[in-house]
């Protein structure tokens, strides 16, 4: 028997028992819609998180931090010079797996331009800072080696600083203007773009303006980047530090920050070892530093995504199994109601496998229709979710997710049709004909 004939028979059967068929589809509808929703939600979260991770420096970002020395070894503390420029130079010279090294000095300072002034945090950095911190430039340029060599009074400022000091002015027009840091004049050579999360972008695109108080209450991972005031490392040292600590040279001054970027993420472990080896020497064997990586943090995010996927997938699988059992139940009821019909078909020459195909096709058709309804339900569900919580990572429905879910439903329909189909196909024509 032709599969199309079987499909025709199946669809007629489904249409003849609409209510019963819809009931038997419910489990599949629920299963497919929850599977698609789970996939869409986790895809959304995954993409949002990935993009966010990239913007905060990615996995390549390693922060070298101070570590308290255990009290037993406290007398060694003085032996180590702590984090200095020598560390940076040592890493650059001996750790080829590290592509960029960014030492920095910090200073809380009064910044002023025109009639505005504010207390902000200023960093003295090298050009590598922009690579390690994944900065982009909106107008002007980054700091260069020349700025550092000559100790120029150049500054690159973040978007937030720009809008505090020159409200309403375009980034291009700010470049070249003067900013005063603790009364020393600097020239703004570059302005950074506004860094924001995807959800903020969406909210802005949706035309939702938020009150500043509400905005400040939310944790903003880009606040540091948006409030950046960056000047050359050397300028920072000679202008603001050398006077206060006359014994320090630029090489021996204790750094406020030391971050690096690993060149090849596939050799991450080896890269960390190279850093440790370099610092072992400069710190004279004193264990007063630690490598703070994003690894654990990222792992945690990944595993929470995985857990969401798993629990959603589990719920979806359970509802699909339940849906499959529902179909099996209906098919068994349907064939015991149609024993006589099957007997007639056998009497006119149907073979067992014709009956088998007919029942299987019918249960797959039920599952498929249920799956399509499930897709519609999932689309509706997603719209409702977007309406209720527009700020979260938007769910992303992929064609792959839809196909996978509907395919899963079809598989459930197929598997649950096997037993009823086997039973139907093994009916004896004579007893089936006699059946009342």
């Amino acid at each position, binding site marked *: 028997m032709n599969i199309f004939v079987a499909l025709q028979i199946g669809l007629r059967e489904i249409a003849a028992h609409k209510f019963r068929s819809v009931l038997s589809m419910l489990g599949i509808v629920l299963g497919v819609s929850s599977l698609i929703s789970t996939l869409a939600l986790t895809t959304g979260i995954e993409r949002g998180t990935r993009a966010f991770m990239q913007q905060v420096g990615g996995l390549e970002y390693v922060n070298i931090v101070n570590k308290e020395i255990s009290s037993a070894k406290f007398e060694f503390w003085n032996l180590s010079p702590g984090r200095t420029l020598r560390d940076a130079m040592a890493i650059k010279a001996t750790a080829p797996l590290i592509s960029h090294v960014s030492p920095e000095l910090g200073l809380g300072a009064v910044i002023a331009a025109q009639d505005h002034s504010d207390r902000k945090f200023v960093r003295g950095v090298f050009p590598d800072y922009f690579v390690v911190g994944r900065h982009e430039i909106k107008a002007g340029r980054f700091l260069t080696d020349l700025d550092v060599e000559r100790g120029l009074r150049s500054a690159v400022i973040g978007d937030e600083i720009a809008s505090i000091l020159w409200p309403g002015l375009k980034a291009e027009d700010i470049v070249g203007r003067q900013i005063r840091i603790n009364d020393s004049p600097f020239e703004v050579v570059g302005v950074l773009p506004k860094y924001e999360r995807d959800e903020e972008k969406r909210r802005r695109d949706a035309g939702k303006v938020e009150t500043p108080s509400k905005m400040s209450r939310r944790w903003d991972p880009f606040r540091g980047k948006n409030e950046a005031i960056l000047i050359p490392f050397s300028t920072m040292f000679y202008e603001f530090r050398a006077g206060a600590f006359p014994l320090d040279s630029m090489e021996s001054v204790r750094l406020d920050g030391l971050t690096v970027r690993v060149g090849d993420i596939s050799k991450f472990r080896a890269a960390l070892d190279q850093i440790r080896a370099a610092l072992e020497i400069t710190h004279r064997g004193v264990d007063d530093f630690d490598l703070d990586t994003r690894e654990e943090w990222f792992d945690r995010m990944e595993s929470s995504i995985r857990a969401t996927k798993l629990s959603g997938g589990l719920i979806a699988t359970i509802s699909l199994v339940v849906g499959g059992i529902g179909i099996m139940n209906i098919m068994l009821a349907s064939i015991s109601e149609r024993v006589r019909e099957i007997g*007639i078909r056998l009497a*006119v020459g149907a*073979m067992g496998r014709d009956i088998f195909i007919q029942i299987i096709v019918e249960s797959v058709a039920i599952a498929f229709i249920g799956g399509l309804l499930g897709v519609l339900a999932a689309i509706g569900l997603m719209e409702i979710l977007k309406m209720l919580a527009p700020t979260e990572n938007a769910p992303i429905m992929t064609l792959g997710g839809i196909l996978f879910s509907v395919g899963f439903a079809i598989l459930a329909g197929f598997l649950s049709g096997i037993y009823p189909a086997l039973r139907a196909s093994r009916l004896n024509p004579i007893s089936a004909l006699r059946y009342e």
Partner: protein
Amino acid sequence: MSLIHLEGVSKFYQVGDQEIRALDSVDLRIEEGEFVSIIGPSGSGKSTLMHLLGCLDAPTSGRMEICGNDLSKASQNRLASVRNREIGFVFQAFNLLPRLDVIHNVELPLVYSGLPSAERRARAEKAARDVGLGDRLANRPVQLSGGQCQRVAIARALVNNPRIVFGDEPTGNLDSATGEMILQMFKDLNAGGKTIVLVTHDPDIAGISRRVIEIRDGKILREYAP
């Protein structure tokens, strides 16, 4: 060679520890073009014999050859393909599919011979017209009279152009006038060359055939020409 050839064919049913000999060592030959009736009282084994001859079942023992196929030990699939090609059934209870209209009921055997749908339709339409139902093709069985239903069943039995047509009490559910008409159709078929086997408990009906086989307790009691 005979169209139907049984040699020592038996059919036993095991019910609990009791063996029921529904057919007991039957020898029978039916030639192409014959019109045969099988009569006997209730429980004598008429239906059992017809099921074997109609390839709905295989015998417990003995040799059975139908239309040149040795079906003594045939599988259900083998039986199905022979009965699809060579055999048509007309039952007492019509046995039409209630959800299908006339044309689809008639074309049912062709669905399982794997014919393309256009050809199925053409042949089913011709078969329905031949039994005088050309104007009721879109009707469903509930919209037809008993006689019309039985004519649909006859059209269905003939649509595959089988060599043998079986009737199991085909007039049992009909009034006598309609029954007469159906029997006349069987006669006409036989006149056209079809082999007909009628199962009945009514000697009057058996009287229209040219050969009557009387069975009792699963055995052939006698054979006569009315």
